[in-house]
């Protein structure tokens, strides 16, 4: 595992040309724009890519074909929104062993406009045991985790609202963020009730967006256009798909395992990070992830969002792109925290740049904390 640490680098990272409401662009177009932009960011050509990693509705074969290349390594592991985070680890393995030389992890999703999208259908399990009761759509599931957390630890609606406020403070500094007006805890509590315990501002955006990152081995990374970002550690795990099968609703076993693996590979501890990206489909996600990753005891995750600690100028910046809550969330958000961490580690973030950003944590979930992917990224070996 130690041999893998720092063996590969993220050398390119970018979004599709536009993010937001894009009824004029198909899902496949969002992929292709993102790949072209990320490859250009790396100072490489699309024809250099020989490893294609993607999750969602399009197989890596479709992406390879549309790009006009013949990849010699492909991976289509689809375990929810964190799949792209997991794929950085998979790309690391393939690159390290010489199974490919330039890997691209690609995401494109017309999550809002549904252009070029195959309608989703229930698989046998949710269709049989959940849909007849009105379940369907992430808020009808993640609220279960959230309500139980409030019951066990006394977490309040105000605590969760703080996460939305903190994340919005970052979005205000990101020109690409969709929602940039400041909000208060009161605004969150008074926004439209959707599914208790969530009001509208507790729930991520629904957008059309693409994103991609390019990886290559550390020796080759030196020749790319930008400062390389080393993958120091990577972890993954899956626990469940049906929420009734999750052992403890308030702690994610997949997240715990994924984090432990990534931290061990990287040789880092909780105190070593100066920037954190957490998948925020809901305001309760990031605090529960911090708890499951071992940053604090169960029930204390929300304290990371108190007193401006996580906001611009705070001691531990979290979700500096404005997150799924305020920047963009196409459905499978996991590529975007990787892009933001890469930019922060390169020092490209302008008004929202975290000073002396050296070690960044990216942690995402798939489904309802069902799967997890964790990366430890750094601009130093």
């Amino acid at each position: 595992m130690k041999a893998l640490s720092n063996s590969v680098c993220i050398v390119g990272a970018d979004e599709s040309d536009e993010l937001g409401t894009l009824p004029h662009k198909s899902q496949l177009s969002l992929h292709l724009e993102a790949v072209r932009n990320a490859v250009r960011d790396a100072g490489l050509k699309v024809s250099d890519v020989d490893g294609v990693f993607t999750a969602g509705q399009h197989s890596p074969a479709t992406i390879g074909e549309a790009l006009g290349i013949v990849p010699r390594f492909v991976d289509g592991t689809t375990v929810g929104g964190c799949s792209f985070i997991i794929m950085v680890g998979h790309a690391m393995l393939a690159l390290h062993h010489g199974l490919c030389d330039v890997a691209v992890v690609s995401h494109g999703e017309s999550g809002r406009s549904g252009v070029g999208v195959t309608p989703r259908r229930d698989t046998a399990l949710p269709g049989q045991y959940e849909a007849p009761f009105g379940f369907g759509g992430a808020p009808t599931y993640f609220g279960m985790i959230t309500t139980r957390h409030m019951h066990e630890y006394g977490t309040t609606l105000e605590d969760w609202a703080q996460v939305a406020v903190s994340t919005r403070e970052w979005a205000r500094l990101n020109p690409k963020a969709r929602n940039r007006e400041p909000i208060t805890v009161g605004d969150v509590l008074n926004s439209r009730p959707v599914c208790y315990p969530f009001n509208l501002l507790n729930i991520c955006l629904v957008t059309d967006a693409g994103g991609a990152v390019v990886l290559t081995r550390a020796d080759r990374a030196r020749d790319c256009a930008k400062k390389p970002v080393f993958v120091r550690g990577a972890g993954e795990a899956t626990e469940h798909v049906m929420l009734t099968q999750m052992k403890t609703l308030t702690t994610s076993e997949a997240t715990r395992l994924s984090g432990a693996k990534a931290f061990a590979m990287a040789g880092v501890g909780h105190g070593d990070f100066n920037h954190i990206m957490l998948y925020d489909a809901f305001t309760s996600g990031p605090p529960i992830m911090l708890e499951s990753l071992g940053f604090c005891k169960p029930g204390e995750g929300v304290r990371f969002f108190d007193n401006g600690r996580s906001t611009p100028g705070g001691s531990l910046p979290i979700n500096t792109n404005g997150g799924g809550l305020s920047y963009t969330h196409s459905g499978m958000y996991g590529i975007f925290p990787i892009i933001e961490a890469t930019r922060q580690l390169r020092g490209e973030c302008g008004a929202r740049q975290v000073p002396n950003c050296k070690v960044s944590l990216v942690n995402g979930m798939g489904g309802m904390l069902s799967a997890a992917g964790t990366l430890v990224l750094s601009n130093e070996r």
Partner: protein
Amino acid sequence: MELDRPLPQPITPEAKPYWDGLREHKLMLPRCRACGRAFFYPRVLCPFCHGQDIEWFQASGRGRLYSFEIAYQTISRTFKVKPPYVLAMIELTEGPRMMSNLVGIEPDPKRIACDMPVEIVYHKMTDEITLPLFQPAGAAR
């Protein structure tokens, strides 16, 4: 008559005793003969010890409200029950958890609490399909 909920589908072969039981107002659960533990959803392999000798037994229909949500808008297009309604995760006395709705109580977060005792209510949809809903234990039917 138009149904206000989607029918469970597809009914998978390993779950037939469960759906057959509900039609007769019995909550049937699978249990592993090797380790003695009940589980849900039905499957051909025990998720605890991976034994394959599975039996069915009639559960009590009692449990606790493990967690809940109140839907103020309908998110699923095929679900036509008028909001607000309570989405519930039930932990049965026998151990397994299942999704359902909590009925027979005002859908108000001040009146509903995790861990409140609940009991099954059989909700007939068609001659073939009856769903397990839950109400606060001891509530009038």
